[in-house]
């Protein structure tokens, strides 16, 4: 079993075009939620979303390349470039050429799909752009990263709705830990704030009309977000040998399925997923100082996730718990990867990000949600929770780079 280092981070979010910019806003609790601004927005009742703003794809891609990239793939490629540059890995490193690329995606190229359906059914036009299919396929973000960076290892998309990014990282982690790959490029991407998708979310009756307030008594539901994150996973000794800065260690992965309700979480199996991640990392609850919660801001998630955390940590000191979704919104397939980036930053900076907008922490939930602002405190090990529609759970365990072996 090899140790798995995190040596590169990339992110694009509603609060920043890079991982450091996004982390700064997350740590400061500055929310990226605002008035929704989309094509055909008159069809949408929900007035808010967490959108990537002031973004011009032409800043990142020449016209010929851009023609092949849905917004979701643009985000994925931008973050993969950032993560690879951050890692300092030589572009000619044979381990990079053979690196697997695993990218979580909830729904794929929805901008392309929504625009095409509007043309066909709305405007009555008879044809769509010839790249429509390769733009909207769910593997497009992973494929586009391989083409942009010359990565020739196994590449694919992972789809598990709101846990996609975490599952992608978990699978990449297993490949590096087993010795199958020395470097892996993994993360998640989503860009589905379109009229069609938003109308679909509205019908589920879970969207907030004002903002996202996880774990707060005045909660009002979740807010849809978008963005992407990519992490470079690297065999510990490979990273050390090239003198890389190791940001944190990925130490465990626990995943399972509720096999129960389509949308309501199941306490027993989410608890088992958290325990499986701990066991995989050979950690006990007392080792964990921070849990980056799934924390969507719905009444259901607040109640179930809090109860599960209290149960897992029964008999051990309760960890600090926070949700970054009040800042980033719920970026679905990207969320698990974005939250992994924030968890790595928390370990690296020894700073627990706050739950923004948690103005009235719900005492019934029985946990410290870091509501008042980022807290400087020793963070030895942390968990990041992702729970998806379809009852799919994925929990990642991270350890500070300087933790004892």
């Amino acid at each position, binding site marked *: 079993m090899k140790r798995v280092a995190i040596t590169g981070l990339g992110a694009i979010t509603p609060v920043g075009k890079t991982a450091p910019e996004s982390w700064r806003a997350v740590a400061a609790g500055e929310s990226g939620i605002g008035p929704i601004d989309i094509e055909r927005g008159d069809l949408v009742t929900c007035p808010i979303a967490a959108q990537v703003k002031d973004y011009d794809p032409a800043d990142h891609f020449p016209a010929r390349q851009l023609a092949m990239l849905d917004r979701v793939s643009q985000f994925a490629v931008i973050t993969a470039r950032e993560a690879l540059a951050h890692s300092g890995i030589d572009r000619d490193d044979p381990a990079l050429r053979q690196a697997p690329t695993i990218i979580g995606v909830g729904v794929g190229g929805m901008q392309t799909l929504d625009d095409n359906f509007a043309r066909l059914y709305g405007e009555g036009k008879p044809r769509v752009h010839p790249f429509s299919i390769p733009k909207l396929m769910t593997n497009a973000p992973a494929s586009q990263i391989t083409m942009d960076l010359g990565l020739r290892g196994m590449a694919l998309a992972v789809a598990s709705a709101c846990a996609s990014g975490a599952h992608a990282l978990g699978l990449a982690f297993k490949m590096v830990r087993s010795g199958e790959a020395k470097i892996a490029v993994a993360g998640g991407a989503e860009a589905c704030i379109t009229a069609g998708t938003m109308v679909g979310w509205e*019908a589920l*009756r879970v969207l*907030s009309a004002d903002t996202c307030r996880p774990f707060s008594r005045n*909660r*009002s*539901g979740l807010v849809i977000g978008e963005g992407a994150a990519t992490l470079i996973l690297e065999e510990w000794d490979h990273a050390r040998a090239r003198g890389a800065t190791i940001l944190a260690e990925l130490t465990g992965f626990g995943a399972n399925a509720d096999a129960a*309700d389509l949308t309501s979480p199941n306490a027993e199996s989410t608890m088992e997923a958290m325990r499986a991640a701990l066991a995989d990392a050979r950690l006990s609850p007392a080792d964990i100082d921070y849990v980056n919660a799934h924390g969507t801001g719905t009444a259901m998630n607040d109640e179930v996730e809090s109860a599960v955390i209290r149960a897992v940590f029964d008999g051990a000191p309760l960890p600090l718990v926070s949700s970054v979704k009040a800042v980033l919104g719920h970026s679905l397939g990207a969320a698990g990867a974005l939250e992994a980036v924030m968890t790595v930053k928390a370990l690296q900076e020894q700073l627990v990000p706050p739950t923004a907008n948690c103005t009235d922490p719900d005492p019934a939930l029985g946990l410290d949600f870091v509501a008042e602002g980022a807290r400087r405190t020793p963070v030895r090990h942390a968990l990041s929770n992702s729970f998806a529609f379809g009852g799919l759970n994925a929990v990642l365990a991270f350890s500070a780079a300087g933790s004892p072996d």
Partner: protein
Amino acid sequence: MSVLERVKAIVGKQIGRDPASLDDNSDLAEAGYESLDVIETVFAIEEEFGIDIPFNANVGDSVQLRTVGDIVTVVEDALAKRQSR
């Protein structure tokens, strides 16, 4: 057909029960409603009556849909609002 009869037909279809076995006081959860049945019913009611129902499970003061009669009240309120416009 009255609002109550039309609501009973939708609720009965949702859980595979004879609408005649339902009345105003029928409790949806006791009748067999699970998490997704409520929002499917909200959708069916909105389509049937051409109205919007302000239901959000995350908001404490949003409309409460516990019984068949609750649904009827919400529908009648929405229809009255539409007529007064």
